[in-house]
């Protein structure tokens, strides 16, 4: 996805930071094991968050030490693949697959060529991932289709468009074991998905205006020059912080476990910080944190 859902590193304890890395490396390792070498390029912070969230109630997990391509000499400690991590690996591939299919439809020649190449390289992995999580695959396909229809019609609502995207993430909650946990995860994921979609639209504003492609925020605030006014930013901040609040109040209802403090950092500090950076225009997607 986009890398907005990450902890605020300076506020993590050293232990939490080390633990976060075990999740990050753990997901990378799960991707490699399940889907081969190239799939690890899909690793990102958002899915690391999801993996931690899905294993949130667990008191501990199994660790292992191993070398990898990013650290060929020193062994790293990482979480062993478990069902939550495997699910996140499946989802990473499925979401990326449909994103590429989108690119094939409406991007320029070079972008399309790149997408084709990736589809070729990762083809078998995509196939396997879609087989592993067919219900999610169907869900992503349907919701992205609906989202595209809204975009083609130039929907002026950020709620309606972000809803389609948020529902994709929220669908992951169906994997939870109890009814109550399903509802809690649904709220967390829906509102984080909603924030991610809106933040991405704000972040892409200038690029989309230049290319003349649809942008939900631009349509909502009727922006012509690619710049948000202070008044627009205030309104976006209000709507985003309500979503942040909803995600947080749901998060407090989750059972506590080994990942709780890191997840709290992401929800209470990480996402709000990135929200203000994106709104201020100082966010850089490529930056390491």
């Amino acid at each position, binding site marked *: 996805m986009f890398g907005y859902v990450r902890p605020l590193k300076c506020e993590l304890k050293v232990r939490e930071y080390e633990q976060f890395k075990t999740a990050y490396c753990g997901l990378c390792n799960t991707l490699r094991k399940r889907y081969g070498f190239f799939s690890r390029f899909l690793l990102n912070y958002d899915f690391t968050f999801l993996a931690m969230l899905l294993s949130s109630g667990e008191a501990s997990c199994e660790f292992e030490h191993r070398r990898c391509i990013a650290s060929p000499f020193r062994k790293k400690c990482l979480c062993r693949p478990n069902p939550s991590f495997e699910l996140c690996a499946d989802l990473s591939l499925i979401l990326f697959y449909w994103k590429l299919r989108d690119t094939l439809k409406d991007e320029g020649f070079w972008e399309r060529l790149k997408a084709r190449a990736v589809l070729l390289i990762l083809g078998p992995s995509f196939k396997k991932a879609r087989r592993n999580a067919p219900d999610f695959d169907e869900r992503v396909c349907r919701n992205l289709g609906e989202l595209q229809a809204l975009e083609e019609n130039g929907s002026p609502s950020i709620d309606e468009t972000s809803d389609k995207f948020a529902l994709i993430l929220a669908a992951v909650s169906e994997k939870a074991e109890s009814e109550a946990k399903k509802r809690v995860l649904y709220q967390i994921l829906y509102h984080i998905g909603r924030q991610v979609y809106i933040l991405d639209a704000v972040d892409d504003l200038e690029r989309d205006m230049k290319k003349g492609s649809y942008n939900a925020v631009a349509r909502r605030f009727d922006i012509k020059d690619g710049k948000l006014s202070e008044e627009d930013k205030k309104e976006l901040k209000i709507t985003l912080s309500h979503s942040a609040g909803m995600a947080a109040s749901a998060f407090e209802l989750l059972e506590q476990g080994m990942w709780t403090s890191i997840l709290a950092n992401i929800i*209470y500090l990480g996402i709000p910080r990135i929200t203000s950076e994106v709104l201020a225009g100082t966010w850089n997607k490529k930056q390491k944190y």
Partner: protein
Amino acid sequence: MNDPYSVLGVSPDASDEDIKKAYRELARKYHPDNYHDNPLADLAQEKMKEINEAYDLIMRMRSGGSGAGSGGARSGSYGPGAGGGGTGSFAEVRAAISMGDLNRAEAILRSITNRNAEWHFLMGSLCYRKGWFDEARRYYQTAVNMDPNNLEYRQALNYMNMGGYNAYRPAGYGTHGGLTSCDICSSLLCADCCCECMGGDLIPCC
């Protein structure tokens, strides 16, 4: 019931003071105000009940079973959703929203052709429950514009404009941004309106 100490997250040999502190922190976390109009309000309420029971039980056990009550603040019964009365189908919409039956509420609202201030307010409430906060705010705004004297509508809009800053945050996760002087003024003005409704006055000059 689970071990009351683990419910409060304290060890059985914790001091009364520590237990009270843990209880207060949890009660603050799951307070109904934090789950106002929240689809998970019932889960928070359950949690609150569990905490209250655990605290009461510990206090009873510690005072030798003489049945000492808890010293913590208690919340009364709480029901989410738009409160207040309403006329005809609007009352039905309110009921549907508070039951969490959003599809029904939406169907009724869409079928109403007389789109007055209350209609916009209820559309706002419905959007809020769906998590469509941008539209919720705009509907509330329209409702207030159409009927500026209605306290319910203004409160809803004010709550929206506060941007959830009053929400609970655990210790150590301080606010980034926080209240601005403008929010404080608008809250005071709102409080003044409440007072005036009841015959009192908070800010004498307005």
